[in-house]
């Protein structure tokens, strides 16, 4: 009996724990969580497989035909069955551009969140664990950082990149500038949360037990403290993902983000905005709806995750 239990396979063991897990249980018993997760996964799926699903490649300038420009969605009079959601002023299929645009938006969101997560968690961990002068320096930098809104930092970086780099290179590196700007503006929240949690964890006896064994500071931080503070970081990460996508859309809408040749959702909304008053509403409304679907589903999921992990934190 005893041996049987030990020999229980790792996979069975994992499934057993999953089944036993309160967060998993709470997920399946929250319709909002299930629906938002499903919607988010759907949006991620269609944008990852955009090149397979999309009827056209909107980035391939050669395939565009100006004769197809500004066609309404297929159910309106004058619609063309080839273009389900209509076309924009250059004859690009709106559906395809949304799929490709979501891909860029999600890519910028994910990569910038991962960057600021690593930066923020690392600095927060060091700040909280080492304390003293190191802590003071890191936290003052964070304070200064907080007094600049994300959009301002992105505009600043974009401006610097524009003056430093030749014009033709600029549109190619626009996406990296964007990711960097959003990542740099987002790390403070992670750092602060992690720092305060590390400060409560580091006085606990399991950390002292590690010191008694003789473990080094890095081992204690990495193996003992980090796993105990990482939960809320994922919550911030999820909520931050939605925010990052919106910042990207805002910047692109303002014209300092991604260029019209490789449009993200924000760029599409901006392009469409110019035609809104001439009755061509579909160019801006459909990308807008896609943006809302992504941001809302991710946000709702993050909200649920926050409640499930610890309603007291954050």
């Amino acid at each position: 009996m005893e041996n049987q239990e030990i020999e229980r396979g790792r996979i069975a063991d994992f499934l057993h724990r999953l089944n036993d897990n309160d967060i998993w249980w709470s997920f399946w018993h929250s319709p909002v969580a299930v629906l938002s997760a499903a919607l988010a996964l759907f949006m991620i799926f269609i944008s990852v497989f955009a090149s397979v699903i999309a009827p056209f490649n909107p980035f391939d300038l050669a395939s565009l035909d100006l004769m197809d420009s500004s066609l309404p969605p297929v159910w309106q009079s004058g619609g063309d069955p080839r273009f389900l959601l209509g076309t924009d002023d250059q004859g690009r299929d709106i559906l395809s551009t949304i799929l490709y645009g979501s891909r860029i938006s999600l890519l910028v969101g994910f990569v910038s969140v991962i960057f600021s997560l690593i930066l923020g968690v690392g600095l927060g961990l060091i700040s909280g664990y080492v304390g003293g002068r190191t802590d003071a320096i890191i936290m003052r930098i964070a304070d200064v950082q907080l007094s600049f809104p994300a959009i301002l930092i992105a505009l600043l970086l974009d401006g610097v990149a524009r003056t430093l780099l030749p014009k033709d290179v600029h549109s190619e590196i626009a996406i990296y500038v964007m990711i960097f700007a959003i990542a740099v503006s987002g790390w403070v929240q992670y750092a602060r949360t992690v720092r305060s949690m590390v400060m409560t964890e580091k006085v606990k006896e399991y950390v002292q037990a590690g010191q008694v064994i003789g473990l080094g500071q890095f081992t204690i931080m990495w193996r003992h403290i980090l796993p105990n503070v990482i939960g809320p970081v994922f919550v911030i990460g999820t909520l931050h993902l939605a925010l990052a996508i919106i910042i990207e859309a805002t910047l692109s809408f303002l014209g300092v983000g991604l260029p019209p040749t490789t449009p993200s959702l924000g760029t599409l909304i901006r392009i469409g905005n110019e035609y809104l008053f001439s009755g061509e509403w579909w160019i801006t409304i459909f990308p807008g709806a896609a943006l809302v679907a992504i941001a809302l589903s991710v946000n709702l999921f993050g909200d649920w995750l926050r409640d499930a992990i610890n309603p007291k934190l954050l």
Partner: protein
Amino acid sequence: MSQLQIENLTVEFPSRKGDFIAVQDFSIELQAGEILGVVGESGAGKSTVGNAVIGLLQKPGHMIGGTISLDGERIDDLDEEIMRAIRGKRIGMIFQDPLTSLNPIETIANQLIETIVLHLKLSKADARKKAVDLLDQVGIPDPSVRIDQYPHQFSGGMRQRVVIALALCADPEVIIADEPTTALDVSVQAQILDLMRGLCRERNVGMILITHDMGVIAEVTDRVAVMYRGKLVEIGETAQVLGSPKHDYTKSLISAVPRPDKRINRFPLVTYIEDVGERKEVDIANHWLGQTQDYADFDGPLLKLTDLSMRFITKHSIFPSKRIYLDAVKKVNFDIKSGEVFGIVGESGSGKSTIARMVTGIYKPTGGKIEFAGADLTAMTTAKEINPWRRQMQMVFQDPFSSLNGRMRVEDIIAEPIQFHKQVSTNAECYAIVHDLLDIVGLGKVAARKFPHEFSGGQRQRISIARALATRPRFLVCDEPTSALDVSIQAQVLNLLKDLQEEMGLTMMFISHDLPVIRQMCDRVAVMRNGEICEIAETEDLFNNPKHEYSQHLLSLMPKFFMDKN
């Protein structure tokens, strides 16, 4: 007729993993002027009984059977509105923590007067007069001045007196007191218990006193009800239940209380309480754990502290003259001989834990020397130099709920020190040792792949002990290893520590605030107060003939539980 009658009370807590019956078929009657103790260990359901009586069961718990009657009228089926009028007016309540049961932003006067006006419909002036009178009765000096102060201006004991005054202010018929003295120091506890007994007699008020402490039960109660896993196992006159318990659980509970009056070899009859797997006999002498030949033999004292001091900065300033310091340990000297169990006893804040943390290297002392087996640890600076010595001394911590990393499996927690010190070459060897260690502390191999949250406090403390033993230490520091545990679990853990100490020939530094525990465990004892050692003596000498004034004071505060009996 009885004042309060509980009949067949059954309380259920539904959860996704099935319904938990917290209290089952529980019946007691409380007479006027009587103090009825309800005793049991954590999880026995004793607080749930108290909460059921005042109609404040924690959600989602609810009564699924039974009745509660006050003066012959049922009160368990009343509306929340009517129940609210009964609570505080006819049933008074005293809770455990005097820090949180008073509102910190209101004066004592406001809190008392509000309650009196609400329940007795007196004018404000009359209510104030009554409040001052009440404070006087509960022994608060200068009540007419102190009534206008805020809770933080009172000490813990004084605050609990205010809480008692608050419970009495509407002249209740019954008082429910849930662990009223658990958060207080021993000396204050005795005064509060005296006060409660006096008030109950004087006003002919019945009291249900919920506690886990046999000493409190022996001190004040007339009758006692013993609860075990939600059921009433025994009820009767206190002297009779404590003197000649009938139920096996009561017997085992009483035998687990450490005796202050004589040293016994092991606590008997403790197997009833928690199902721990039998300790498997491992032949330690021939086992890896017994092969400690890599330690050089040393004839002098294993641990020698010379003028050891620790000074914390409590208020930092860039100007050294404006810094405020706290001298937690002041020039302490003592030796611990190989193979002995050396106790340090003292009240909270006496510096005993600080010594443990300096010896094990968590804190760096601000003065003095620590010599271990002849080597001066305070002179070593690099980890490479110190680590071989660290390996020889390990520590068991106080709080079993925070001393284990909740994100690691038990086997990885215990394997970590072995792997870190590279004591064995292969993983397989390492985990084989871990599994043997789990057997040795009585948990068995089944525990290996679980996480700490799946264990009770006592079981976690066993894991903590296994981790401490994993480096093959010859010196073990135990910092209040049982103060967070129930008395029966404490007895089991102390038995285990004694077994291990004998089998492995460990030298131990055992820190506790609990004198009876010290007497059961230690060969020599140091009594500490305010960072200084008052007295170091052989345990038997200390208990029979304390020399220092403070030792005498501490000994006089010991619970009289066993002394009454003999």
